[in-house]
């Protein structure tokens, strides 16, 4: 189980290889990639920022929870921070499982929880030179 934040470019194929096991018939790789447009505007780059210690801890928590929830062999998540150009990988999730259903379900659960819970933010830079924080999701906080 390898769940972390990095400033380096992500080698997604290497991540998929890392979770591969002889007991698992499915290896699923998801990558999130910087897109060249958002809400009708032309995007040239994204700058990601994280509360790194907490984000790492949250990613590990999600990995552990998902490994308990679904019948998977192994899981790895890497999220990149810093300045990323269009086409670069911002996040990669690799899951191995004996059967494909568990791998698809686990991968989906990880990306959905990541987007709701992990303290990461991104600032879009547009072709016209302007930039702005991307509107995010209010994380769920325990009740008082």
């Amino acid at each position, binding site marked *: 189980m390898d769940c972390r934040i990095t400033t380096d470019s992500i080698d997604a194929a290497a991540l998929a290889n890392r979770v591969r096991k002889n007991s698992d018939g499915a290896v699923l790789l998801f990558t999130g990639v910087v897109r060249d447009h958002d809400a009708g505007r032309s995007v040239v780059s994204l700058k990601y920022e994280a509360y790194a210690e907490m984000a790492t801890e949250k990613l590990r928590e999600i990995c552990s929870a998902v490994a308990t929830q679904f019948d998977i062999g192994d899981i790895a998540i890497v999220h990149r921070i810093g300045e990323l150009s269009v086409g670069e990988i911002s996040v990669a999730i690799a899951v191995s499982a004996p059967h494909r259903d568990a791998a698809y379900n686990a991968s989906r659960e990880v990306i959905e929880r990541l987007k709701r819970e992990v*303290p990461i933010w*991104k600032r879009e830079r547009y072709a016209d030179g302007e930039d702005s924080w991307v509107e995010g*999701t209010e*994380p769920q906080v325990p009740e*008082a």
Partner: protein
Amino acid sequence: MVAKVSALSEGQAPVEKVHVRVLLFAAYRDRLGASELDLELPVGSSVTFLIAYLREQRGAEALPGSPAVAVNQEYAPLNTVLEEGDEVAFIPPVAGG
């Protein structure tokens, strides 16, 4: 950029105090003009008190009234009472992926 601030006024009777480290990220950092604050608060202060104090000092538009908060890197309710040395992070809506 660390600013040291005290929420205790000069000249009043000695009050037991706690020191907390406040972390600000993304849009909140931009609006408050600092990524980190070292604050001195009266003992027994809650996160709610800290928010009210910052909004009073920096303007109500600097921070929402009920932002998501993490105390020592765990999401925490606003009535959490702060202890000496706590790390309090204001978490703007998250946008990973």
